[in-house]
């Protein structure tokens, strides 16, 4: 009897997750419907107008999609040269040592720092530096946001890749050493190829994190609604435009913001799904 009750309770609790997910999707779709109906789905995606002059309202998501993709890709680019060495350090060179465990703890600690703190650091330390170096006059912009975003995703990419690097069988490494290979050659020809798909999927998941990161980006990207024409110019990401404008928006503008939210949700879900599938495959192989 109690076993049956337990089962029912467990089942009910587990059911909450899909219900929440479905609910979010449903709410996003119904609230975004107005915008898609008014502008057309495809037009909404490709229009770069964002003007709320009454009577001539025009909303399009392209500047923000571009802003999100630019910051994410740049962040990934900056992240790789820092996360890969950390992963190699923890997963290969100092595998199993005290130094490695300290380093990986510190790396994981970085992942737990609230994004507002990264934002403040970016605003008061990095932004003046960028101005002082004459990289851009206003300091904030795509580049500034990407740099801080990169620091934020390093821990994810590094600790996941380290796991896959650790999993490379010793048999293979010893086999390579026995043929006279140096450590660098073993890493290049054996460790990286074998752990490759796992490392790649770590970066896919890191991208998933970067896509939706809101607070830091909102504080640093400059918040202009045009398509950024260079990496030093200002812009807005999909998350930052919503964070900036949801309070004052209503009707069509609110619906457009929610539509952007829906697109962001779908892109993020898609990227995360690909990452997860790849990780599963990498683990099996």
């Amino acid at each position: 009897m109690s076993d049956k009750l337990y089962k029912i309770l467990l089942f009910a609790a587990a059911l909450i997750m899909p219900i929440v997910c479905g609910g979010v999707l449903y709410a996003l779709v119904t609230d975004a419907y107005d915008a898609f109906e008014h502008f057309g789905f495809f037009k909404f995606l490709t229009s770069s107008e964002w003007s709320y002059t009454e009577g001539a309202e025009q909303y399009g998501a392209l500047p923000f999609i571009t802003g999100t993709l630019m910051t994410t890709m740049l962040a990934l680019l900056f992240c790789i040269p820092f996360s890969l060495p950390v992963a190699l350090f923890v997963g290969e060179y100092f595998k199993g040592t005290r130094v490695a465990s300290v380093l990986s703890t510190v790396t994981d600690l970085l992942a737990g720092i609230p994004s507002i703190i990264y934002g403040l650091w970016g605003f008061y330390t990095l932004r003046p530096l960028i101005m002082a170096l004459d990289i851009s006059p206003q300091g904030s912009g795509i580049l500034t946001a990407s740099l801080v975003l990169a620091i934020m995703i390093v821990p994810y990419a590094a600790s996941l890749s380290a796991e896959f690097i650790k999993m490379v069988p010793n048999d293979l490494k010893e086999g390579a050493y026995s043929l006279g290979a140096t450590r660098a050659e073993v890493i290049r020809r054996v460790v990286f190829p074998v752990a490759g798909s796992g490392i790649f999927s770590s970066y896919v998941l890191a991208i998933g994190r970067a896509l939706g990161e809101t607070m830091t980006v909102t504080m640093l990207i400059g918040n202009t609604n045009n398509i950024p024409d260079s990496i030093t110019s200002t812009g807005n990401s999909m998350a930052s435009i919503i964070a900036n404008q949801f309070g004052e928006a209503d009707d069509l503008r609110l619906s457009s913001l929610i539509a952007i939210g829906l697109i962001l949700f779908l892109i993020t879900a898609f990227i995360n799904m690909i990452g997860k599938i790849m990780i599963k495959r990498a683990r099996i192989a």
Partner: protein
Amino acid sequence: MEPVTPILEFNKTCVSYTKQTMAVKYVSAAIDRNSITAIMGPSGCGKSTLLRAVNLMHSLYPNIRVDGEILLNGENILSMEPIDVRRRVGMVFQRPAPFPTMSIYDNVLSGYALNGIRLSKTEKDETVERCLKSVALWDEVKDVLNKKGTFLSGGQQQRLCIARALAMKPDILLMDEPTSALDPIATAHIEELMQELQKEVTILIVTHNMGQAMRISSKSMFMYLGELVEYGDTAMMFSNPSDERTRAYLTGKMG
């Protein structure tokens, strides 16, 4: 007549994992050129440890110490660069482990790739064909050279690993229980192969299988608790061991 330098000579070789315990204790023995020498003994007797020391595998693990001398053609390998030693001393491990991201063709040539040695297309083709032929794998795989080595059966994979070691033209081939993960037919194949190979390379093999030692080796070492108890002619050792411990092991009273 001038005395011939043995191809490999252990001189009071000791290996220790910790300061207190020695896994291999003062082993001294000279290995004959172009022969098969078997190292036997119960689990944990130090036979694999001794074998791995010849390829300086211990230098990958900072806590392992090797003392004494191991002479390769009269030169002490313990004071040589591990990379130079390993290019001259091939090794085949217990579990066949071809590189999973490389084709059969590239697996054979992996020693060259790993060492950054460039070969011309003809040299590559010749090396692959010669090595696969010498491990009797050529006929089975010559049409699928671009497939991944991991698609092969366990015995074929192990022969591929032997070919990979032979491609570097080593002076010595170390084999660490190369057939323990294989079925009897694949094992017979590998044993036959070793008989062929001893014409070109000196083989030192660790084996758990007394029958295997008897079938293939001309000389045998028996190790127990890190010591080399007996070393001599295989047929002699099996028929009339000089040490009581060897006799106990060979008659199955100790294992």
